[in-house]
């Protein structure tokens, strides 16, 4: 059962900002994550601020520099089937298409996908875990098959988004509007590691709304993909995955974005791998070397050491697919 709450549907972003600044206010974009969390008592809401009336935040349009602006309320389905995105920023199109189920993608938005709460079963379940303000992370001594091998401390969730890793790999930025005005930041900087604050996943302050995602223009010779490994064909989060955004010039990698998914509390960029790839021709040997490097320093828990070979395999396969 849903708890009782107040409901407002602002007409402008500034009204939304004001409503969201109130204590206990929760943003409703597609509602797919919010309603589940409220129903399961993961958190409460004094008021639900529906963003669905903000038409300015919907749709996809080209920017002057040849990039793309995607309104935060654009559905995942729209992102997935947009021919321009599939062509210029394939990792994002594939990430959006890999999320949830087709029906949820009709409701879920790109902004919501970036801001969704984690899928950790202790966080979602009837456990007073650290992320909900409790004392311990149950995954440490418990059932941690699906938990982090990188970046965990005090909490070992993995970030659930399939679009976040592609966006980081693509060096996208987001625009955030809040009580103090608007700001832009790289998607990479949107997320918070548990070492910084284990009770939240993004830097968004009360009252702040993610309004748009900006994709830089595709580089010459751009290639990309998103590879997600999961247990089931649909409605399943990544066991491990990788977003690649490469540009190839004269047979050599000119630039590289390599970001893992399903392995850490944030999209997990591997700069060492990016560095390794640049300036070299992508072949089987390099792919194997890069895959090895991608999982270097992993700290598996009792039940998830499989993620090391799995992610390694996914990275190698993904790189070879672009070779």
């Amino acid at each position, binding site marked *: *059962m*849903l708890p009782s709450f107040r409901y407002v549907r602002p007409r402008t972003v500034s009204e939304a900002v004001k409503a969201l600044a109130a204590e206990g206010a929760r943003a409703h974009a597609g509602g797919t994550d919010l309603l589940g969390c409220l129903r399961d008592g993961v958190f409460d809401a004094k008021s639900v601020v529906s963003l669905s009336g903000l038409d300015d935040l919907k749709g996809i349009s080209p920017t002057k520099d040849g990039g793309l602006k995607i309104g935060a309320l654009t559905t995942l389905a729209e992102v997935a089937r947009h021919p321009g995105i599939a062509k210029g920023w394939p990792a994002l199109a594939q990430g959006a298409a890999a999320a949830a*189920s087709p029906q949820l993608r009709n409701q879920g938005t790109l902004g919501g996908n970036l801001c969704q709460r984690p*899928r950790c*079963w*202790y966080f*979602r*379940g*009837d*456990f007073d875990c650290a992320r909900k303000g409790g004392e311990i992370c*149950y995954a440490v*001594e*418990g*059932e941690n*098959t699906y938990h982090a091998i990188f970046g965990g401390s005090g909490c070992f969730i993995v970030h659930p988004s399939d679009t976040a890793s592609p966006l980081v790999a693509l060096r996208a930025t987001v625009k955030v509007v809040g009580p103090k005005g608007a700001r832009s930041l790289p998607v990479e900087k949107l997320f918070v590691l548990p070492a910084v604050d284990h009770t939240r996943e993004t830097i968004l302050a009360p009252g702040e709304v993610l309004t748009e995602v900006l994709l830089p223009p595709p580089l010459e010779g751009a290639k990309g993909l998103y590879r997600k*490994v*999961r*247990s*089931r*064909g*649909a*409605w*399943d989060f990544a*066991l*491990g995955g990788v977003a690649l955004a490469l540009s190839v010039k004269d047979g050599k990698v000119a630039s590289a974005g390599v970001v893992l998914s399903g392995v850490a509390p944030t999209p997990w960029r591997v700069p060492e791998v990016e560095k390794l790839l640049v300036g070299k021709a992508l072949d089987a040997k390099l792919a194997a070397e890069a895959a090895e490097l991608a999982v270097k320093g992993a700290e598996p828990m009792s039940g*998830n*050491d*499989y*993620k*090391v*070979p*799995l992610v*390694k*395999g*996914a990275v*190698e*396969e993904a790189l070879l697919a672009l070779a």
Partner: protein
Amino acid sequence: MTDLLYWLQGPVPETEPPTAEMPPWGETKVVGKPVPRVDAYERVSGSAVYPLDFALPDMLHAAILRSPHAHARVKAIDTSAAEKMPGVRAILTAFSPGADVPWYRSRGRFYSKLFDERVRHEGDEVAAVAAETRAQAFDALKAIRVEYEEFAFVLDPRESLAPDAPLVHDGGNRYGEPARYERGDLAAGFAAADAVVEATYSTACEIHAPMEVHGSVAKWDGNRLTIWDSTQGVFVVQQMVAGALKLPLANVRVIGHYMGGGFGSKLEAGKYTVIAALLAKTTARPVKLFLTREEVFLNAGNRPANTMKVKIGAKKDGALTAIEFSSIGSGGAYPNGADTSFLATDLYTCPNVAAVDENVAINAGRARAMRAPGFPQGAWALEQAMDELALKLGMDPVALRLANVPKVSQRRGNLPYTSTGLAECLRDGAKAFGWETTRAAKKDDGPIRKGYGVAAGMWGYGGGPPARVVVKLFADGSVNVNAGAADIGTGTKTVMAQTVAEELGVPLEKIRIEHADTGTTQYSGPSGGSKTVPSDMPAARAAAVEVRTKLLAGAAEELKVPAAELKLEGADVVSTKDPAKKLAVTEVPALQRNQVIVGVGTRGPNVEGKVISMFAAHFAEVEVNVRTGEVSVTKLVAAQDSARVMNRLTFECQVQGGLVMGLGLGRTEERVLDRQTGKMVNANWHDYKIPTALDVPVAQEVLSAELVDTECNTAGAKGVGEPATIPTAAAIANAVRDAVGLRVHDSPITPPKLAALLAAAGKKG
């Protein structure tokens, strides 16, 4: 469940002789044809009213407060705040008058109560609320204060018998003595073997997860109770509710027309049924009580996890010399079946066999029979062991199985089967699958490896009495069939209409089935165990034959010819000697006088000195990504021996569904309990993964051996639901072994498990 498995436990019930003489059907006109469901319109249009859709005027809504702890004692309950909540009309706890109802009966003893002060698993019932709205009922649950004293718990059946294990029940953690079976001389058998394999296999706990949650609507009229229930058997619910509330059976009417799946989890009344009835009694209002999806995961049954040790020996030619099988499983916090040894003792010819089944208590939700209870687990172990044996002997796995096809049921007194299609299933399946050619062409390189596997199975229960059906022929020639069986989605109503149409020549559009209502329809056992067709169709046939006999007798009087020379032809009764002598059915005076001709059919006893069993062989093709451990099942072929196929469409649908449920066992499904708290962490459809449309192969073929079996029953059909799911998971596991050379002993075969195994084995693309 004891009812359902009586074939394992003792003689069949007393029964009346069949009411009509019925030679086996020869060529049939309606039976066996791919006829669409008679109730398909309701099911596809959305007009079918399921129990969850049901509402009555002035109805209250109820919800249950459940233990958040795996093992605890309820020290105190304070409902005072909840009682004052808006809309709350009644609250029941262990301390409420009338709520002291014993529950979970096994071996002559009750293991718990409706609300037990000692809760033995997360989800055990603690209190219940009835309120004006569902939201108010759930709000009130939150306001009930419960003080618990927490106890240590045990989750793994293998740890349940340790000397220091927490006791789930005060008498100890064993549900009865281990069940032992022996024949021949095991030691001699292994001594005579040329090859012996031995390994331990395990299956994860599965949840039935039918699409419609469990629940009931209860309404009293004085001391008469009516219940609308999502159930596989209205008469079981009637018996359990009448027993719990000490009411005469006649005062409890249970109606269960449509229902959204059960798979064995709805073969009994739930506590929710009785709680709804008690709340309705207290408030003098109808009460609707349906579980949430999470509650279904926690407390509406499961297929228990089993750990099975198998040792098999064989001669060089494949002839089995000895099988040793031991199994431990758990009925859960309260007793239910967890045995798995049957297949190991009966599927193949083997002179020396020993098996033991151990069933213990743990602090987790109670099991309920799940589609072929015990058999898919047993097949997972036995059929992987057979695969290993074939490898060790250097034999084709199909050939090894063919070398051991039994002619008699060794487990059941060496009695012959009425029909046995195991060899046909193996041969036909292998041919359709392209077993030899695909295996010969297999390559073992590259990152994506193909593999091929086979597994066989059987289901040892061919139905039986009691079952009764009444057929009414109305004055206009239309027919009403009255039967107590639930149609759980298998097509019972459709097949029954076909059976009656076969005998009476009435088009299906003129037949209406009244079913699954203890107040108005005839007794039938619950629909489960693949027994509805073999139990109820003979009764339906007998009833139709009786109607036909009476009709022909009436016509004979009018036409002044002996009844023996008359036959039904379309809507007419015609003389076989003189076609000019005919009479429309509707003009038969006996029918016109009485406005109806009634036939009563009963299910006769099963054939003496023989055993009825269904057989199956499944073949799987998989692709394994050796880099990531991903497994894709790319092809499945099911060859089934169910004797007569009553309806090709419903038959295929059953088998396809069985294959995919087996795929779930083999590939995706697993209940996960948190070792720190004993709580289930994946009590939802996202974390508990049943297969989606994207997990099933495009290539899926269903074959039927279609043996003629004139002895199994008068419909000649043996049933199909259970055998269709028994060997699938094992066939997939064997295909994975074939693809990558690694044996996954523990279900399900997930990327986590396989990626770890592949890495450990140093496999690379």
